[in-house]
């Protein structure tokens, strides 16, 4: 009943998107839905809200909250579409449709339905990138996004159908009683999620898609779409534990070493959004490592890092867009010395970038500590890789901050608006859960 309530609230917001002057109302309805969802579902320690095809457990709950929050912030960030009257009705419909797909992905009981909505959430994302992106490269970016994900997910579909053939059930809750001991099934099931996360060798779609997407597309990609992979891995690991214990070293090594290379590559980026996108890959590499080691702290650390990275990266993309709206360039050379013009914005750059590098008291810190603990307990040698990844992530976050804020400003600037109240609210709403949720983490960290 509870899940249907929110599903219908979202479905009936669709006609609201097409009415006149409803842009801010849709955003406010999404905030209201977030408030209701957050406070009506406080019994999150077990599976709850079980119904015919819906359920909620702690992972679903946190990720649905994150999706609703990021979707409402997406609308707040895209005010320029409303001002320029650029098909904002269809944009709102896209956002609500994407939110429905994500909500259903996280809340259905059936593995095949999960797959269906997992793939269906790609369509509005593709439309967002191609419809409202800024550069002509967005067509290639859309193709990369689509085909990388579809390439990974066809084996997943075959695996799901095989599971149904074998077990005669698709209910996610019942899969924990089974143990599928087949290597081919294992690789086919997890490959889609590794592409989505993304792991190092299949990560190429991410810098393209994140950079070419409009701010709302970047926010939802960094905020939630990457976590679909993590959520899928967490669900699918339940019945693949035995094979995973034999093969997990492959994925952990690829993702950790790849995360190291990607962190080093961040220092070479000229494009702000590209730097933030590569830093997403580095963070997600640690998340993959945490899930693959299969200990409790690994799961907890990866889940916390997923939530905190969603908020942090999404906030950084908002900041990059705030700069882009004024200077029409994402280049680091042009965006330097911003502290001279928007000193209040440098507060938000600092807060979000310090969270990105897992400085206390952010939630990223807790996630990284748990992940470091779990990965080091799996193997002492991963200490070296983790040390380098954490060090370089601090390095490129500081590099980005000091390049953008300090130094001489670009002489070609004329004049622009300092920073409207809406933009500060947008960044505050990203930062506040990030730094305040650490005060009561047991809502997202303790699973039993």
């Amino acid at each position, binding site marked *: 009943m509870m899940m249907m309530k929110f599903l219908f609230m979202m479905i009936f917001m669709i006609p609201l998107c097409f009415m006149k002057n409803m842009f801010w109302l849709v955003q406010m309805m999404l905030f209201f839905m977030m408030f209701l969802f957050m406070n009506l579902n406080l019994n999150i320690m077990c599976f709850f809200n079980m119904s015919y095809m819906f359920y909620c457990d702690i992972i679903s709950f946190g990720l649905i909250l994150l999706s609703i929050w990021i979707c409402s912030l997406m609308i707040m960030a895209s005010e320029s579409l409303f001002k320029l009257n650029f098909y904002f009705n269809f944009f709102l419909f896209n956002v609500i449709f994407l939110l429905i797909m994500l909500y259903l992905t996280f809340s259905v009981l059936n593995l095949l339905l999960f797959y269906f909505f997992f793939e269906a959430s790609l369509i509005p994302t593709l439309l967002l990138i191609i419809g409202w992106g800024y550069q002509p490269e967005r067509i290639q970016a859309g193709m990369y996004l689509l085909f990388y994900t579809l390439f990974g997910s066809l084996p997943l579909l075959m695996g799901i159908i095989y599971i149904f053939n074998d077990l005669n059930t698709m209910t996610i809750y019942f899969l924990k009683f089974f143990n599928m001991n087949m290597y081919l099934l294992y690789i086919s099931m997890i490959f889609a999620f590794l592409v989505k996360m993304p792991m190092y060798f299949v990560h190429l779609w991410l810098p393209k898609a994140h950079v070419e997407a409009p701010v709302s597309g970047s926010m939802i990609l960094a905020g939630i779409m990457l976590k679909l992979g993590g959520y899928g891995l967490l669900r699918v690991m339940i019945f693949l534990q035995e094979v995973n214990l034999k093969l997990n070293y492959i994925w952990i090594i690829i993702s950790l070493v790849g995360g190291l290379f990607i962190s080093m590559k961040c220092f070479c980026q000229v494009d702000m959004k590209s730097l933030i996108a590569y830093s997403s890959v580095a963070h997600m590499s640690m998340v993959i490592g945490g899930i693959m080691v299969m200990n409790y702290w690994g799961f907890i650390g990866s889940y916390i890092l997923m939530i905190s990275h969603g908020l942090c990266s999404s906030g950084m993309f908002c900041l990059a867009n705030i700069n882009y709206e004024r200077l029409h360039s994402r280049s680091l050379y042009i965006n330097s010395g911003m502290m001279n013009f928007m000193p209040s914005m440098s507060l938000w750059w600092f807060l979000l970038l310090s969270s990105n590098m897992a400085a206390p008291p952010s939630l990223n810190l807790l996630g990284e500590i748990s992940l470091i603990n779990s990965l080091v307990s799996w193997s002492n040698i991963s200490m070296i890789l983790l040390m380098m990844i954490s060090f370089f992530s601090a390095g490129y976050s500081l590099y980005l901050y000091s390049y953008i804020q300090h130094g001489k400003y670009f002489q070609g600037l004329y004049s622009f608006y300092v920073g409207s109240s809406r933009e500060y*609210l947008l960044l*505050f709403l990203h930062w506040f859960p990030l730094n*305040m949720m650490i005060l009561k983490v047991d809502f997202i960290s303790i699973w039993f």
Partner: protein
Amino acid sequence: MAALIKLRHMPLVQRSVWNHFNKVSRNISTSKKNSDTATTACETKTEDKNWVSYGFDYTSKEEDTNAHHATFFFSVTLCIVFGGVCWAYSPDVHMRDWAQREAFLELRRREKAGLPPISPNFIDPKLIKLPDESELCDVEIII
């Protein structure tokens, strides 16, 4: 009686009386009167001249202010303040804190009594049915 029938001319009578009185009390004076209406061009209120938008709507101040108030209410007041209070102060969800307290009390009791934290026969050994050695020879040992 005749006056009653003539009542339909009453508006005409009223109008002629009014005109008469106006003509009689006509005068010309150049001093400022209270009854003069202001005829200067209407000024916009000074607060509307250079208003700074909150960022929600750059054309209409009223819509901008409405959107600003509503957005801050729904996001900050509702979600962050009320939601945060509910999260932070919700009573012991699923009795987790109670369970931890009970566990610590039990551990302290057992420590004082010299018992191990948990007895090796927590489940009665007679109820556990282990498989035979013959069934176990193929199973891989994973540590």
